[in-house]
């Protein structure tokens, strides 16, 4: 098929490319301004304690210190859902909780001042395991949450906000099953998505109730909204978003450090910069939620699911801002992945005295699937069903439905992914390599290879609202106003492509406004792979609206009706007679023509990605090497080939596939301290250990927008972890069910080392 597009689908340089390769891109910490001072946080050494007294006099008296704030000095700003967690509190709830804030002329002075603050604590018993936290008599983190259970549901998802999956008749489903398996499975290694750029902010307070924030976050407009709510709907925030040095979900929310900087600016009258150290980033910024499922599944011999029943426990750490949303979306995603008529999956979110969990790529679904696919695998093995065939068969098909996050039922109206998944299997050589459950695909001395497969899909590609303006100018240029920050996906460039395609204007004639909330309309931001469909739809609509308005202005000058006109390269012409044309400036050099576009949420399309993995394990050392990954998806229409390739390659990083091999946050469950809060002890994949990676991308047009495309980027991390466990199980010939599959764990399964006895369940062993 010949491509009818001039820009869409073409590999083009990113519009920020020169800045990035020359070091000219201004990330948050590169911004300087007159009078800038620096903020630092004094953090609790205890996982649970009451502050009996704080003496800040010595710190406040240090030369160069501009302000010191404790819980006694700050307004009752609260985060958490529902609002539970004060910005500074008399009680500290994890090792790293904020005790005091200091602003000073230099970072060094601020750090010195932290040492001069004297705090008297009354140490309280702490709880660091979710089942322990639920027991009667367990230490209580909040009076508001009896039994440490976080209130389920999310107000902004509406009154029916999804809390559980309950439908059909599970007893009937189990009666119909040929096999039933049950057990407890977890994904509890709380990996850190760990973007290279630490969370940070610059805040400038303006009396009486305004603040301007410079941010390098994933969704700068939402910072404004979040802070409005955190401050009890009192604060009018302007956010100026710049390039975001990685986020992977995590920097969608930075309400704490943002609030600290605002309060310090309010106290000092100066702009305050706060940037976390890498140790703070690893030890005090949000982690993946911890997930533990205890469930039964019923399956027929042909791989048809008949019932799923059980409980899903989610450890959110010391507070939850978004965990309820992640549970809601995770439940929706499980239904998309596993068609089943009978469900009774009940969920509980628990607070414990560790660092909080928050948003990470995979948003609940990765956590839930990484826990439940091992259970489904036990059933598949009993009836001898090939996992690829099972996952392909049970993924949502056109006409099927699911309860999404708002608790409403949606009927899927997208493409059937079967062909795309078959293409992936073919490229991987699944049929040739699959030798059956718990059977290696090959054995060569001490090296054993195994394969596995995982899948993920979500209906968040059409989540939430977006708005945009497109301004057509008489100089033959256009400008896009969209409050989207560039966080690595290249979407700011892709939206320019969409405008270029609608207006048939060379892309270098189109610019995009800074992601400033003062000048741009509402934008939820790029998350959940919503950029291509949701944001793209708003951008396209704005460009189409501007084009229509331009034709209305110019039609009389061409003695034609607006619908008879078209435009290319800054000229408007008669479709019937392209020779008859006038430049855009014929509208008058003293005017512009602005279109508006808005996207309304739509949960009837879902995206899909399948990851095939091959691992090799060394039975002497226990080391698991990832040899090969093939990712298969269908995106309707590729917008930007190298950008998509990068997104899919991202399956390895940011707490994705590698969270099954070596990535973990090691929490000492007796003291509450994180033991690997640095980039040497927190393991990450380097250039010298890159597996072969291939993307098999189909393009079956979706009924999304005029380019028939949907996004997929967020999902790339999600199918991998359970696929790796499956592959390792097959390579060893025994089930392995713990993340990550460290050499020690492999050797334990092989019977070569003895199990370690530890207090408490789950987590780092």
């Amino acid at each position, binding site marked *: 098929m010949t491509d009818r597009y001039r820009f869409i689908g073409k590999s083009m340089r990113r519009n920020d490319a020169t800045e990035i*390769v020359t070091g000219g891109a201004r990330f948050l910490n590169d911004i300087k301004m007159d009078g800038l001072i620096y903020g630092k946080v004094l953090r609790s050494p205890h996982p649970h304690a009451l502050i009996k007294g704080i003496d800040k006099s010595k710190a406040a008296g240090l030369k160069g210190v501009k302000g010191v704030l404790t819980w006694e000095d700050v307004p009752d700003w609260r985060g958490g859902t529902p609002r539970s967690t004060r910005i500074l509190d008399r009680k500290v709830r994890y090792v790293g909780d904020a005790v005091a804030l200091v602003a000073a002329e230099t970072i060094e002075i601020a750090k010195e001042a932290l040492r001069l603050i004297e705090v008297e604590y009354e140490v309280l018993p702490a709880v660091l395991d979710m089942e322990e936290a639920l027991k009667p008599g367990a230490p209580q983190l909040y009076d508001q949450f009896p039994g440490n259970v976080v209130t389920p549901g999310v107000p902004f998802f509406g009154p029916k906000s999804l809390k559980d999956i309950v439908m059909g008749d599970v007893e009937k489903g189990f009666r119909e099953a040929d096999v039933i398996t049950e057990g407890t499975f977890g994904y509890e290694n709380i990996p850190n998505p760990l973007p290279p750029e630490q969370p940070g902010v610059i805040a400038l307070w303006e009396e009486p109730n305004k603040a301007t924030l410079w941010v390098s976050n994933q969704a700068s407009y939402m910072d404004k909204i979040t802070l409005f709510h955190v401050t009890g709907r009192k604060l009018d925030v302007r956010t100026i978003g710049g*390039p975001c040095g990685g986020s992977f979900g995590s920097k969608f929310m930075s309400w704490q450090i943002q609030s600290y900087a605002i309060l310090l600016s309010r106290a000092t009258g100066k702009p305050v910069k706060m940037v976390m150290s*890498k140790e703070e980033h690893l030890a005090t910024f949000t982690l993946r939620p911890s997930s533990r499922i205890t469930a039964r599944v019923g399956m027929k011999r042909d791989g048809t699911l008949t019932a799923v029943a059980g409980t899903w426990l989610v450890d959110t750490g010391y507070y939850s801002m978004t965990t309820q949303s992640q549970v809601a979306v995770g439940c929706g995603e499980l239904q998309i992945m596993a068609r089943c008529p009978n469900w009774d999956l009940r969920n509980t979110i628990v607070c414990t005295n560790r660092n909080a969990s928050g948003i990470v790529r995979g948003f609940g679904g990765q956590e839930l699937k990484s826990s439940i696919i091992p259970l489904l695998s036990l059933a598949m093995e009993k009836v001898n069903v090939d996992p690829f065939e099972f996952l392909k068969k049970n993924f949502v098909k056109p006409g099927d439905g699911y309860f999404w996050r708002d608790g409403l039922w949606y009927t899927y109206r997208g493409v059937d992914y079967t062909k795309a998944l078959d293409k992936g299997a073919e490229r991987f050589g699944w049929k040739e390599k699959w030798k059956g459950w718990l059977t290696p695909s090959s054995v060569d001395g001490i090296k054993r290879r195994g394969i596995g497969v995982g899948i993920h899909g979500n209906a968040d590609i059409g989540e939430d609202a977006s708005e945009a303006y497109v301004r057509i100018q008489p100089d033959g240029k256009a400008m896009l106003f969209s409050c989207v920050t560039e966080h690595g996906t290249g979407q700011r460039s892709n939206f320019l492509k969409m405008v270029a395609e609608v207006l048939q204007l060379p892309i270098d004639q189109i610019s995009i406004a800074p992601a400033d909330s003062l000048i741009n309309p509402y934008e939820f931001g790029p998350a959940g792979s919503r950029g291509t469909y949701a944001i793209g739809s708003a951008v396209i609509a704005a460009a189409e609206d501007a084009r229509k308005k331009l034709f209305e202005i110019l039609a009389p000058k061409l003695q034609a009706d607006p619908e008879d006109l078209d435009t290319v390269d800054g000229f408007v012409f008669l479709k019937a007679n392209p020779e008859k044309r006038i430049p855009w400036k014929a509208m008058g050099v003293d005017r512009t023509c602005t279109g508006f576009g808005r996207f309304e949420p739509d949960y009837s399309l879902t995206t899909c990605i399948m990851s095939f993995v091959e691992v090799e394990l060394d039975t002497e050392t226990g080391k698991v090497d990832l040899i090969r990954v093939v990712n298969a998806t269908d995106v309707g229409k590729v917008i930007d080939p190298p950008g998509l390739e990068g997104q899919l390659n991202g399956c390895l990083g940011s707490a994705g596939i590698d969270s099954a091999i070596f990535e973990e946050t090691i929490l000492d469950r007796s003291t509450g301290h994180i033991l690997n809060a640095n980039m040497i002890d927190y393991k990450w994949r380097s250039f010298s250990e890159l597996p072969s990676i291939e993307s098999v991308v189909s393009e079956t047009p979706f009924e999304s927008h005029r380019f028939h495309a949907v996004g997929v980027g967020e999902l790339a991390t999600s199918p991998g972890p359970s696929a790796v466990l499956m592959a390792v199980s097959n390579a060893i010939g025994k089930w392995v069910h713990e993340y990550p599959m460290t050499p020690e764990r492999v050797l334990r399964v092989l019977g070569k080392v003895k199990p370690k006895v530890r207090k408490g369940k789950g987590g780092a062993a």
Partner: protein
Amino acid sequence: MKARNKAVEERRCIRLMVNGNPVELDVGEGPGSVRTSDTLAHTLRETLGLIGTKVSCDHGACGCCTVLMDDRAVNSCMTLTIECDGKSIKTIDGLRDPATGTLDPLQQAFIDHTAFQCGFCTPGMIMSAKALLQENPSPTETEVKKALSGNFCRCISHYQVVKAVMSVSGKGR
């Protein structure tokens, strides 16, 4: 090194070349001076305003802050500025041709291969690759991976970075 540090102490200033320009910095506590505890990354960014060099882990693990010191790649967050007396430092800010603004072929290759996603680690990647190419103008893929093994990237730009560096391998400096 000790003798040089002693000379620095006596002179109370250090002299170095940064991106081809001579720089003289007083050693002391005042504004614009270099404290003995200042890292090269700090001096480049905060004292000289060369913000192209990024700091991520600030303890030598991630390679974001890589610069060239006498043509060798170093972690500028682990290098004390007072130890740079007499050295020639090259940073990402000075990699393009200063007169014409033409990009270094390596920078152009990164653009052509979209060898970045968020771009935060990119300056360090380019400087590590530059050091390799200066020492070995025709590296193999394995040599490229080895030279970049100290550079952290979380978006997983690695594959496109390797392609970009290989595209200039064997094409001179």
